[in-house]
């Protein structure tokens, strides 16, 4: 074995967080700390699903359920009264409903990015966060899909969106970006759900085997499909997982691109821009990581997952957020440059209007939250501070909502003819639906953290140093070129290196 440097001393921060964020190029930092072995990972994660939830869970669930009922009541009222109860008008026919749709679809991007793109790039740190990031994706897409569904005006005819044979010989118009959206979001939801479920099968089997309760055993047994950890099955499973990752990678980039086509293919100044697809995708990843951090920081503290979701994971996510934030900042600047450089009167007016015109507060909220706030993440002490990270992530969450408001509403308010200008003011139904969508999201998320494995146990175990055979003279294995997660000396017997 080549010389392997021992792990440097890792100081303890914030009380009991072990700081594994050192950058020593000769050695990979451990991704699981605290001297954990396989059984420790199983115990820490299964306990969350199998035991009674803590008191705060009931409180949070009650709150989320309250907001969800608000959403239900508001949608009921909307169906009875019609979309006139919203603040939408002419010319602002797309307002909170589409803003919320784009906001939630955007949040849904981080999950698949973490599970697919980081998987293809062999970023092993993804294993600690991919499960609940994927769950977040699915719940965010459910929230997103609600809004166009109720925005169609007659939601009971929403099935017209799909090419269902019918007696009217009526088909969707496939050259419309709105219909591409139906296919893009529908495919994205289906594939994300499959990816999430396939990843969860081995962990559901762990819950089945660890459960002492008959009902839990039966239910986890049904959903784990009789998984036995057979290596012949693992072989096909890993191949299927790789294929899903390879398929999801262009998919995740396509979804927000298609969403951006809804705007980019129109003639409206402020929408009609070729930069939209990459700009939307970067923004989606930016906002998605902010939401992952918003959920991960409380979860790791409340469920004792600090040794699995370590400071290094937080640090890496902050770096992704900073990088995508810079792409977003660049896109904002290029839009202004293009407006000036085009010498196109209406395009120039649209961007002046954003900064100084009808609703400048929305623009400045967006700009401060998305461009200024993340700059603090250049500093390592800020990335390692959970409080600062949490605050920045929430700035980004808010900023990304305002970004969509700025793009959609301020562009519609003042288009070509001043005689057709109009202002938008949200009604209470708009605000209740926005709040209610958070209720739907958190209700689903709280159910997930209570009943399902929130950490991908099998994947976390497979990146621990003791998961790799050491060969000892075996020709199949005595390779010196590839030692994926070697951190110290041999770790026989499923024991990790000693606690640091």
């Amino acid at each position: 074995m080549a010389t392997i440097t021992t792990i440097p001393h890792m100081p303890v921060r914030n009380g009991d967080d072990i700081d594994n964020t050192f950058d020593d190029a000769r050695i990979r930092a451990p991704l699981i700390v605290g001297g954990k072995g396989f059984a420790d990972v199983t115990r820490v994660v299964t306990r969350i699903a199998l035991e009674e939830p803590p008191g705060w869970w009931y409180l949070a669930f009650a709150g989320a359920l309250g907001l969800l009922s608000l959403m239900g009541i508001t949608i009921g009222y909307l169906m009875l009264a019609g979309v006139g109860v919203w603040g939408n008008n002419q010319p602002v026919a797309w307002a909170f409903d589409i803003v919320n749709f784009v906001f939630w679809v955007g949040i849904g991007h981080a999950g698949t990015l973490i599970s697919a793109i980081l998987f293809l790039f062999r970023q092993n740190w993804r294993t600690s966060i991919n499960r609940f990031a994927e769950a977040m994706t699915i719940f965010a897409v459910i929230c997103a899909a609600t809004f166009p569904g109720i925005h169609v005006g007659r939601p009971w005819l929403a099935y017209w969106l799909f090419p269902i044979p019918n007696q009217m010989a009526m088909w969707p118009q496939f050259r419309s970006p709105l219909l591409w959206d139906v296919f893009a979001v529908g495919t994205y939801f289906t594939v994300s759900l499959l990816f999430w479920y396939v990843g969860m099968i081995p962990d559901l089997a762990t819950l089945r085997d660890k459960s002492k309760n008959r009902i839990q055993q039966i239910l986890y047994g049904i959903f784990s499909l009789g998984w036995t950890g057979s290596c012949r099955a693992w072989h096909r499973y890993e191949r299927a997982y790789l294929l899903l990752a390879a398929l999801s990678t262009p998919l995740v980039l396509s979804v927000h691109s298609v969403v951006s086509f809804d705007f980019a293919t129109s003639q409206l100044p402020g929408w009609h821009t070729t930069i939209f697809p990459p700009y939307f995708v970067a923004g989606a990843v930016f906002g998605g990581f902010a939401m992952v951090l918003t959920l991960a920081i409380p979860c790791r503290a409340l469920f004792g997952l600090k040794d699995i979701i370590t400071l290094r994971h937080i640090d890496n996510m902050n770096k992704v957020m900073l990088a995508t934030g810079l792409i977003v900042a660049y896109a904002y600047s290029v839009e202004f440059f293009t407006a000036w450089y085009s010498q196109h009167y209406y395009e120039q007016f649209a961007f002046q209007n954003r900064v100084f015109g009808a609703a400048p507060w929305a623009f400045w909220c967006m700009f401060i939250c998305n461009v200024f706030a993340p700059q603090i993440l250049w500093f390592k002490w800020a990335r390692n501070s959970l409080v600062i990270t949490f605050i920045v992530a929430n700035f980004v969450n808010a900023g990304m909502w305002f970004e969509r408001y700025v793009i959609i509403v301020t562009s519609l308010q003042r288009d070509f003819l001043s005689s057709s200008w109009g202002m938008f003011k949200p009604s209470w139904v708009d605000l209740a639906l926005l709040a209610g969508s958070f209720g739907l999201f958190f209700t689903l998320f709280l159910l997930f953290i209570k009943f399902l494995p929130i950490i991908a146990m099998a994947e976390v175990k497979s990146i621990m140093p003791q998961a790799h055979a050491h060969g000892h003279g075996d020709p199949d294995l005595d390779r010196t070129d590839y030692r994926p997660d070697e951190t110290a000396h041999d770790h026989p017997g499923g024991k990790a290196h000693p606690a640091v």
Partner: protein
Amino acid sequence: MSTAIAEHPTSHASVTEDAGPLPQVAAVMAEFENVDDVMHAARTVRDAGFTRWDVHSPFPIHGIDGAMGIKMTVLPWLVLCGGLTGLLGGLALTWWTNASKIPTPFMANLQGYQFLISGKPVWSLAANIPVMFETTVLLSALTAVFGMLILNRLPMHYNPLFKSERFHRVTDDRFFVVIDSRDPKFNESEVTSMLQKLNPLSLEKVED
């Protein structure tokens, strides 16, 4: 269920009138503590020429495919077929519904409709690529998942291995080598002594 049952005939004819069918040895199972040991065991069993056997582990082990002699799965080819079906299906769907007026042969009132949108041609490939892309990805992903499950013979809720209390740790931190009694080379005493030499944590007969 580590019973030390003496040899009994392994045919279905061994039914006594009172006790019903005698339990059959379904497999012999050896438990290991770490990856190195189970890799060594896998190579030994592979080299002994067994075919109906398996290694069970809590996570995919890097390099176990070679140690067990597992051949590459056919799954990627199935996914390619699924993807091509999706691509052609998407093409057919968009073309037939929006650019043709061909009625379906056996169904009444089912035919495409040529939308006239801003005087554009009724058929242009570029406008239909997003939908074709999505159907390609969708069918590929469905094939990857359901193909994997079918090839793995899942769901399969009955498995004699589940009767073993020890086997519950396969999804936690233990590794098992299981040799199926239906293997043509299976001989209970020989298999037991071969596995015994590999120094397992435990050795157990699994009954059906």
